[in-house]
């Protein structure tokens, strides 16, 4: 039988092939069939997760709560030194230099990336802004968020910090950063569903030494990762608790 692997839809498009390489690597290590299914949006992916079509996922931290607490997934690894941080930026010529100066009624360009959107909204709170007094414009990628700022179709943009950093210098020079989060303990996580849990020991052994051989190293760098690190059950629960404090009221 073949298992299903999927990746949080917020991965950078440049690294798609990396996930295919990872899938091939994974099948060799585990000696089982694994099918990689990629999604354009979180909504469709969540639907498939709920209908039991996913056995392993590189998950957005925001989805980890549902996966771990409701569906019995277990964390096997996290990427080393890849926290999910959020940047709020404006046009370089914007009159606003701090979040507190942003007025009601502005348009915010954002993506469907749940952790970035949540942190972005939290970082607007010091200006008394929330969904009732701003307009959000959801677009497909961070490049499009940047375009909306440059074309002045939005006054404010939310970016995953890595997504912001990967924009071209030409684009970055036309924007200014108002605030960049420094949370460090919220990050993506590789989770394994109930049907695949027998593989966890082998999987962890291989993942944690993957950066030590040339092949593994190549796969990692094509995914833009340095190394996999252990993540304990308690560390996972802590991250979920933390995210719980950030969402809903």
């Amino acid at each position: 039988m073949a298992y299903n692997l999927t990746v949080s839809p917020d991965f950078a498009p440049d690294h798609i092939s990396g996930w295919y390489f990872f899938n091939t690597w994974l099948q060799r290590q585990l000696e089982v069939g694994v099918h990689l299914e990629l999604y354009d949006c979180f909504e469709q992916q969540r639907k498939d997760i709920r209908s039991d079509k996913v056995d392993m996922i590189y998950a957005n931290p925001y989805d980890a709560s549902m996966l771990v607490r409701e569906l019995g997934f277990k964390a096997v690894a996290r990427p080393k030194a890849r926290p999910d941080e959020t940047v709020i930026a404006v046009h370089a010529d914007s009159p606003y230099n701090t979040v507190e100066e942003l007025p009601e009624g502005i348009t915010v360009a954002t993506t469907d990336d749940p952790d970035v959107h949540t942190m972005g909204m939290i970082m607007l709170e010091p200006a008394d802004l929330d969904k009732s007094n701003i307009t959000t414009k959801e677009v497909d990628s961070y490049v499009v968020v940047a375009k909306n700022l440059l074309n002045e179709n939005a006054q404010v943009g939310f970016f995953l910090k890595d997504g912001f950093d990967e924009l071209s210098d030409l684009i970055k020079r036309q924007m200014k950063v108002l605030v960049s989060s420094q949370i460090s303990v919220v990050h993506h996580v590789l989770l394994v569903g109930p049907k695949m849990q027998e593989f966890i020991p082998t999987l962890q052994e291989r993942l944690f030494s993957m950066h030590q051989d040339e092949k593994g190293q190549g796969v990692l760098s094509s995914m833009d990762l340095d190394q996999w690190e252990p993540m304990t059950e308690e560390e996972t629960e802590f991250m979920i608790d933390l995210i719980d404090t950030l969402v809903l009221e």
Partner: protein
Amino acid sequence: MSDQDTGETREVTINYYDGTSRAAEIVDREVPYPDGKLIVSRTDPNGIITHANQAFVDMSGYTREELIGTNHYILRHPDMPAVAFAGLWETIEAGKKWHGYVKNLRKDGAYYWVKATVIPNIRNGKLVGYTSVRRKPSRSKIKESEELYATLM
């Protein structure tokens, strides 16, 4: 900086709910909340600190060693009404999420305002402690809270 800041120092006795008290030097000087950061701490079920992130250490002015193992009321500011914390404990002991605006006392006597959320940590169906995550509040919410809390003292 708050309109209420005078920079003056006063000697105050802080009485805790558990019957203990301590003398503290209070300085009316606000330390601004750091942009982009979350201040995170965890406690055991009795409110004894078990974890503090770097932002917590930096803002409180205590070392991590001084914080771990100490009752979380070490941050209690005398301008905070007891009823605010009674509401906090009632909510989290009922297993629910609490949020509110809190004025915290630093080791050096100065203060900082936070928007705090506290949730119970449940593991295998059992309560093992609480997590609090604070974020930067708006000036208008601080002003509102200052006015409200003054009426509750």
